[in-house]
């Protein structure tokens, strides 16, 4: 069990490192060095940068030195919490991102919980009542969930809510709460707005998990031990929940580790369509404006968040499924 956790932890560290390299590559990709871009942007807005200032900036970022030196300097500053300055906003990157990273996390996590709590019971139900009307209905919804990219779903829902209710569904807060400081009322407002975007985000993953759960459980239900359990006179609920469901959870578990990255990824695009104050719209704007420190930092933070989330979901599953605990010893 310790070995399993260590292995997962090492893999997580490796992933974070890889993501940090990729983020730095993204920062470096635009042609020209970014001090030039920075100076151009400053002079366009009327301020002057002296040659000495420019040189000190170049030295700070290690420009002109080999890639790994620049990367090292960047990483060293990141570890101390200095993510650089956003060129477009002229403020530290961390300040620009602010609450948005937490709202992204909240949205992804809510979608994850929703995915689990929908896929499990529906999957079980569909398998136990195979070929019933509800099974067909869920299968149909499942296929729609797989076939409709979530941004498209967001667009369609937005359109119909506009046509039918005349209101826009966008946002995580109501208008009067957007700028208000955090309070209980604001949290409550957030909770009221969260379910719809979370549901839109969760549908694709839920559809896939339902199918996996249904298929696995159907395999398990045909096993002889189920017949034995029935023959012993156990109640139907007990027969199903106590053994086959737990056995069917195993492949389900290994898929969950990849669900969280998928959700974080999806939250970007859903947020843009629905106008949610997560890092999604900020990332796209930063990339279009070539505000590379902001963009690189967001990619890095999202990556780290994903790795941490995946690690936590691994731990939860280990706690739930004793076989994972013992297999890994």
């Amino acid at each position: 069990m310790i070995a399993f956790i260590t292995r997962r932890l090492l893999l997580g560290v490796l992933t974070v490192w890889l993501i940090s390299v990729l983020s730095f590559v993204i920062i470096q990709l635009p042609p020209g060095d970014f001090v030039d871009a920075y100076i151009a942007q400053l002079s366009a807005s009327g301020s002057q940068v002296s040659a000495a200032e420019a040189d000190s900036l170049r030295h700070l970022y290690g420009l002109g030195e080999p890639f790994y030196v620049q990367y090292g300097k960047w990483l060293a500053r990141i570890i101390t919490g200095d993510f650089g300055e956003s060129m477009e906003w002229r403020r530290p990157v961390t300040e620009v991102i602010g609450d948005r990273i937490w709202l992204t996390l909240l949205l992804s996590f809510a979608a994850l919980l929703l995915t689990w709590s929908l896929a499990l019971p529906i999957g079980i139900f569909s398998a136990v009542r195979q070929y019933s009307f509800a099974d067909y209905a869920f299968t149909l919804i499942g296929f729609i969930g797989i076939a409709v990219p979530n941004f498209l779903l967001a667009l369609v829902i937005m359109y119909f809510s506009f046509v039918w209710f005349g209101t826009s569904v966008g946002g995580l807060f109501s208008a009067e709460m957007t700028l208000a400081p955090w309070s209980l009322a604001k949290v409550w407002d957030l909770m009221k707005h969260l379910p719809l975007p979370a549901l839109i985000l969760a549908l694709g993953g839920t559809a896939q998990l339902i199918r996996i759960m249904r298929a696995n459980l159907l395999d398990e239900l045909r096993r002889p031990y189920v017949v034995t359990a029935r023959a012993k006179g156990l109640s139907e609920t007990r027969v199903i929940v106590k053994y086959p469901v737990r056995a069917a959870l195993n492949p389900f578990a290994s898929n969950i580790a990849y669900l969280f990255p998928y959700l974080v990824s999806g939250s970007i695009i859903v947020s843009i369509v629905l106008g949610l104050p997560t890092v999604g719209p900020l990332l796209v704007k930063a990339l279009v404006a070539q505000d590379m420190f902001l963009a690189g930092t967001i990619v890095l933070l999202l990556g780290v968040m994903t790795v941490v989330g995946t690690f936590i979901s691994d731990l939860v599953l280990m706690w739930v499924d004793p076989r994972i605990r013992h297999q890994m010893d």
Partner: protein
Amino acid sequence: MAQIDSEKYAVATQLQLTWWRFRRHRLAMVSMVLVLLFYLLAVFADFLATTDPHATDARTSYIAPQPIHLFDDDGSFRPHVSGIKGVRDMRTFKLVYTVDPSRKVYIDFFGRGYSYNLFGLFETDRHLMTLKNPERGDGIFIMGTDLLGRDLWSRLMVATRVSLTIGLVGVTISLFLGVLLGGVSAVYGGLVDTVIQRIIEVVRSMPTIPLWLGLAAALPNDWSVLQIYFAITIIISLLAWTDLARVVRGKFLALKEEDFVMAAELAGASQGRIIFRHMLPSFASHIIAAVSLALPAMIISETSLSFLGLGLRPPAISWGILLQDAQNIQTLALAPWLLLSAIPVVVVILAFNFLGDGLRDAADPYG
């Protein structure tokens, strides 16, 4: 009859068996026909387009979908569309279109329109439908027009070609990477296997869209449409090969233990011959199934990227670019038909999923 069948069954190749089993799967068969139709449509996109998909005209901005009338007043079969008159509302300055049913513009089949290259080989200007003697602003607007007055049907045809081929090219690259790395991983095992497996796990646990966005945003602005197209394809496939690699590795490892592989080994076959002559044919159908499941994911990726304005860029036309116009609620309220481009996206993805499921079930013909 049964006798002949079982004889045929005994000597059939793996792919034949898979095909026989696949044919019994009705939904998958329908989906396959649909997918083939879509690709056919992609090949003849320009022929099916009624007007130049790039031609803008301020006088045809946001025209709602217009029906084609099949019969003339006297009941004879003469397809035509009604003339449309745009009048500017002097209070809102918005163009308001009114249909003028008395003015009929007849449709010419196989008539001449804008010129294009068929199959990239020969130039022609024949189209399925064009208008006879159109006045300025007339057109066959089956799906309406966008802000710049471009005909959506024609744009959708060309977009279908772009989006569907991006999927194919991308899957080819992913397949190459997947078979290569998955195969190497299985054949060599040991440290190589461990390293490749860890790489796969790391790639799979990264959030894809932010990375794609970051890489796609760095493509130079002065690149041609074709360069961007290939760059986007490569970016998408770089993160999409892992599933294929897992399938290939899994199958390889399973087959290694089979008797017929050992028999070939004992008979002195070379490793290359064992892999390509004995093992590959028996899991080709699994690869086909995995590919047909990877294709829709690929198509969604391109559509999402272009939708966000960081994939293909205008003047290129793809599904994502068409949907980009439908991005905000103000536009949608004004021109809801822009959302029609979503239908082929959903249909194709659904068809590919059913097709892939059918193939996966059929890939184990003895099962």
